[in-house]
C-alpha cells in the first residue's frame, strides 16, 4: 500500500537517480571541450537535491517504510545531508582533475556511491543494508582505480576491491548467522528475537565480532586499517577525500544504528570497541608521525579520527551518539578542506610530499590559510569545528565514567598536534629552493575556490556557532533510543 511518506523517505535517492540519468543522457552530446561542465551539472544538481530534500523531505516521527526496508527518521536524514554535501564538494574537486574532470562516468559513479550511502543511512533491514553497502562500495572500487595508466591508482583500486570483497563476505556471513539465530532480517525486530533465544549468547557474540570486522574495515579502524594508506595515496585525490569522509561516516551511520537497535542487551561489545578505539587512535597517530607523504599522513590521521569518534560509540548514550554524529559532521568538512588544499597544490606542482609544501604561504597565501584552518581543526583547536567535536566526544566519555578512554583520547590528541603543526611548519616557515616563491604562484581555479571557501567557512561555523548543528545531531541521536 502506498503512502506519500514512502516517496518522501526516498526523495534524495530518487533525485540522485534522476540526476545521474540526466547526466548519462546529456553528457555524450557535449563536445569534448565542454565535458568539464558535467562537473557543474553534478554540483548544481547535488545542491538542488540538498535544498529540495531540506525543504520537502524532512522527517517527522520515525517510521519504517517499504515493508520495514527503510526507516524514515532524522538520524538517516542528517547523514544523507552530510553525504550530499560531501559529494557536492567532491564534484567540485573532481572538475579540474586531469583524469576525472572530463569524464561523465566519474561523476555518475560518484552519484551512484552517494545513492548507496543514503540508503545505508536509512536501511532498517539486513538485506537492504547489504545491498546499500555494495551499491556504495563497487563504484568506489572503480573510482579508486580510475587512472588506468597510473600504477599506484590501479593498485589502489585492486587492493581496495580485494579487501572490500573479503570484508563484505565476512559481513554477509555475519548477517546470515544473525538471520539464522533471530529468524528475522528486520533490524528493529532483531533485539527481541535475539533476547528470546538467550541460550545463543556466545554465538551472538561471535556474530558481533564478524560484524565488527566488516564495519571496522569501512571506518578503517585498527586492525582493519591496512588498506587505507595505500588506497588513499594511490587513488585520485578527490576520491580519497570522499573515501575518507563520506564513506567513513556511512560506516559509522550503519554501525550505530545496527548495534543500538540489535544488541543493547549484550553488554560486552562496548568494551571490545573501547579496545578497538584505543588501538585505532594510538596506532593511527603513532604511524602518522613518521610519514613524509601528505596523503599517507592524512590517511593515518583519518584512522586516528575514526578512533576518536569510536569513543562516542563506546559511551553508548544519547550524548555519545550525538557526539559521534557531530564529530563526523565536523570531520567531513575539515578533512575535505585538507584534501582540497592538497589537491590544489598537487594539481599545479604534481608533488605530494610534505617537504614540497615549503613556501606555500608565500606562493599562495589563501591556500596556506586553508591548510592552516584544516590542520588546526584536525588537531582540535578552536575556533574550528574539530575543537568542539573533540570536547563533546570527551564529554560523552566522562559522563559515562570512561575516564581512561577520555585520557587516552586526550593523550592522542597531543601526539597529533605535533605532526599537524609539523606540516604547517613547512607551509609557513620553510622556503622553496632558491627562495623565489613569488615566481611560482599556485593559481586557484574557480571550482576549487568555491569549494575551499565554503568548506573553510563551514569549519569555522561548526566551531563557533555550533548550537544548531549539535541540536540536529542530538535529534538524530534521539531517534536511535
Amino acid at each position, binding site marked *: 500500500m502506498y503512502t506519500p511518506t514512502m516517496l518522501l523517505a526516498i526523495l534524495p535517492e530518487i533525485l540522485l537517480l534522476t540526476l545521474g540519468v540526466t547526466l548519462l543522457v546529456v553528457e555524450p552530446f557535449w563536445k569534448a571541450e565542454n565535458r568539464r561542465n558535467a562537473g557543474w551539472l553534478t554540483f548544481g544538481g547535488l545542491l538542488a537535491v540538498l535544498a529540495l530534500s531540506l525543504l520537502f523531505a524532512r522527517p517527522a516521527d520515525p517510521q519504517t517504510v517499504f515493508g520495514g526496508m527503510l526507516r524514515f527518521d532524522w538520524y538517516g536524514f542528517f547523514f544523507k545531508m552530510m553525504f550530499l554535501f560531501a559529494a557536492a564538494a567532491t564534484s567540485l574537486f573532481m572538475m579540474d582533475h586531469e583524469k576525472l574532470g572530463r569524464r561523465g562516468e566519474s561523476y555518475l559513479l560518484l552519484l551512484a556511491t552517494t545513492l548507496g550511502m543514503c540508503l545505508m543511512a536509512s536501511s532498517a533491514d539486513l538485506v537492504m543494508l547489504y545491498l546499500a553497502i555494495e551499491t556504495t562500495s563497487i563504484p568506489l572500487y572503480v573510482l579508486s582505480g580510475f587512472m588506468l595508466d597510473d600504477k599506484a591508482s590501479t593498485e589502489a583500486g585492486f587492493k581496495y576491491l580485494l579487501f572490500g570483497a573479503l570484508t563484505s563476505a565476512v559481513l554477509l556471513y555475519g548477517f546470515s548467522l544473525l538471520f539464522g539465530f533471530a529468524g528475522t532480517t528486520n533490524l528493529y525486530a532483531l533485539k527481541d528475537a535475539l533476547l528470546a533465544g538467550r541460550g545463543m549468547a556466545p554465538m551472538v557474540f561471535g556474530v558481533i565480532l564478524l560484524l565488527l570486522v566488516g564495519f571496522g574495515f569501512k571506518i578503517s579502524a585498527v586492525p582493519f586499517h591496512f588498506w587505507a594508506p595505500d588506497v588513499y595515496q594511490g587513488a585520485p585525490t578527490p576520491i580519497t577525500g570522499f573515501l575518507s569522509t563520506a564513506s567513513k561516516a556511512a560506516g559509522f551511520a550503519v554501525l550505530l544504528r545496527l548495534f543500538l537497535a540489535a544488541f543493547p542487551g549484550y553488554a560486552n561489545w562496548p568494551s571490545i570497541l573501547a579496545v578497538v578505539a584505543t588501538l585505532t587512535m594510538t596506532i593511527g597517530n603513532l604511524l602518522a608521525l613518521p610519514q613524509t607523504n601528505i596523503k599517507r599522513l592524512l590517511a593515518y590521521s583519518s584512522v586516528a579520527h575514526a578512533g576518536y569518534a569510536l569513543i562516542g560509540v563506546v559511551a553508548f548514550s*544519547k*550524548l555519545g551518539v*550525538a557526539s559521534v554524529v557531530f564529530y563526523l559532521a565536523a570531520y567531513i568538512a575539515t578533512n575535505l578542506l585538507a584534501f582540497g588544499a592538497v589537491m590544489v597544490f598537487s594539481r599545479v606542482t604534481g608533488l605530494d610530499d610534505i617537504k614540497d609544501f615549503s613556501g606555500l*604561504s*608565500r606562493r599562495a*597565501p589563501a591556500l596556506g*590559510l586553508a591548510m*592552516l584552518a584544516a590542520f*588546526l581543526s584536525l*588537531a582540535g*583547536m*578552536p*575556533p574550528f569545528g574539530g*575543537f568542539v567535536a573533540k*570536547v*563533546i566526544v*570527551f*564529554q560523552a566519555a*566522562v*559522563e559515562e565514567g570512561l*575516564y581512561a578512554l*577520555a*585520557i587516552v583520547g*586526550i593523550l592522542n*590528541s*597531543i601526539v597529533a*598536534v*605535533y605532526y599537524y*603543526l609539523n606540516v*604547517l*611548519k613547512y607551509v*609557513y*616557515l620553510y622556503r622553496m629552493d632558491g627562495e623565489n616563491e613569488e615566481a611560482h604562484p599556485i593559481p586557484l581555479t574557480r571550482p576549487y575556490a568555491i569549494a575551499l571557501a565554503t568548506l573553510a567557512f563551514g569549519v569555522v561555523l561548526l566551531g563557533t556557532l*555550533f*548550537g544548531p548543528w*549539535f*541540536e540536529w545531531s*542530538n535529534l538524530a541521536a534521539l531517534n536511535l533510543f
Partner: protein
Amino acid sequence: MNFPVLSVIVFTPLVAAVLILLIPANRKNEVRTTALVASVFALALSIWVYVQVAMHPVVDLAAAGYPYQFIEKLTWLSVGNLHIEYHVGVDGMSAPLVLLTGIVMFTGVLISWGVDDPHAPTGIQDRPREFFAFLFLLAGGVFGVFVSLDLFLLFFFYEIAVFPMYLLIAIWGWVKTREYAAMKLTLYLFIGSVVALVGALAMYWTAGQATGVYTFDMLQLEKAGFPLAFQNTWFLPVFFGFAVLGGIWPFHNWSPDGHVAAPTAVSMFHAGVLMKLGAFAALRVGIMLLPEGAKTWSWLIMLFAAIAVVYGAYIAFVQTDMKYMIGFSSVSHMGLVMFGLSTLNRDGLTGAGLQMFSHGVMTALFFAVTGMIYDRAHTRQIPELGGMVKPMPWAAVGFIIGGLVSMGMPFFSGFVAEFPIFMGVWQVVPLAAIIASISIVITAAYIMRNIRRVFFGEMPANLEGHISPITALDKLAIVTLCLLMIALGVAPNLMGPMVQAGVDNILRLLGGA
C-alpha cells in the same frame, strides 16, 4: 542590555585579524595602520572598563547576586544535559589584566612597526599581514580568557590564545631555536590545558549529578560544593594544568626557550600577558572552584613557587644572553605570583593580583628594549654589548626604570606588589618568606650588572656608528609602559582597592578569613 563592552573588546582583535587578512599582502602600511587603530580602540575600551570597575570596585552581593560587572550572558548550546553559555564579566581581579592586555597589544603594535630599511630592518618586515593577524587572534583569545565566566568559553579562548604562539614563534622567531622552542612551548601548553580540561569535564558532571543543574557556568559551579575527596583529586591536574602556562617550576622549561625564540612583540605578549593567563586560570578554575583542594595542596604550590623564585633568579643571574636573563627573571617573578596565590590570605592574593599587572608591564618593557637593541646590534650577549645609553637614551632610561621595578624599589609598582606577597607568606610560613627574599638580592645583582654592562661601559668597536636611533613609535611605547609602572608605584590606590575587592570574593569562596 547595555552596550556589550566586554564582547566588543574581545571581538575587536578577532575582527581586526580577519580584516587584516583581507588586505593585499604588499600593502604593509595599511596592515599596520589597521592593527594600530584596532589596538587603540581595544585599549580605549579596556581603560574605560578599568575606570568603571575602579570607581565601583565593590559590587553589592546581596543585590546583584554575583561580584562581577559588565555581565553578558547568552545561551550558546543547550541540548539535553549539555549546556554551554557565552558568559562574560569582570571583577577587581580581571579588570587590571584586561587593561594590561590592551596596553601590551598597543605597545606590541608600536614596537613591531619598525623601519623598512633593507640594510637594517627593525620590527616585523616579513609578511606583516600574517603576523598581525595571528597576533590579534592571540590577543582576542587572551581578552576572552580574562573575561570568561563559563568554563567551556574559558577553554575555547585559552586554546585560541595558545596555538597562534606556535606560528608566531616558528615563523618570525630567532632562526637558531625557533622550531624547537615553538614546538616545545605548544606541546607543554597543550598538554597542560587538556589535562585541566579533563578536570573541568569531571567538575561538570559531578556538579550536575549532585545538584541537577548541568552547567559550565563558573558562578554556578562555585556553589556546587564538591566533596572533599573530589576536590583533593582534581585540584592538582586543574591547577597545575593551567599553572604550566604560568611558568611554575618544575614545568617552566618551555618558557625561557619560548621567550628567547619569539620575536619582540610576541615575547612581550608571551611574558607580559600569556603567563598571567596561566596564573589567572589556575586561580579562577583551580582555587575558586575547588577551594578545599587548594587548602589541601597549598603547601605544594608554595614549595614549588619558592623554588621558582630563588632558582629562577639564580639562573637569570648566570645568563649571558639578555633574553634568557629576562626569561628566567620572568620565571622568578611569576613564581612570586604563585607564591602569593599559595598563601590563600588577603595580603598574599592581593599582592599576586598586583604582581601580575606589574610584572606584565615591566617584562613587556624589558623585551621591547632588548628587541630594539638586538635589531640594531644583532647580538644579545651581554659581554658583547656596551655604551648603549648614547645612541638610545630613551631605551636606557626605560630599562633602568624596569630594573627598579624588578628589584622591588619603593615608588615603583614592583614594591607595591611584592611587599604584600611577602607579608602574606610571612603570616603562613615565615621561613619561606625569608628564603624567597634571597631572590631580591640576586635580582638586584643581575639587573644592575646588566645595566652597567649594556648601557654604560665602553661600546665595542664593531658596534660604533652602527646603532641607529629608535623610532618615535618605540619611544611612545617605552613612555607608556614606564608611566604606568611609576603611577602604580606612587599611587597604589589606583589599583589596590579593586584588586582587594576581587580578593574578597575569592576569600568568600575559601570560607571566611
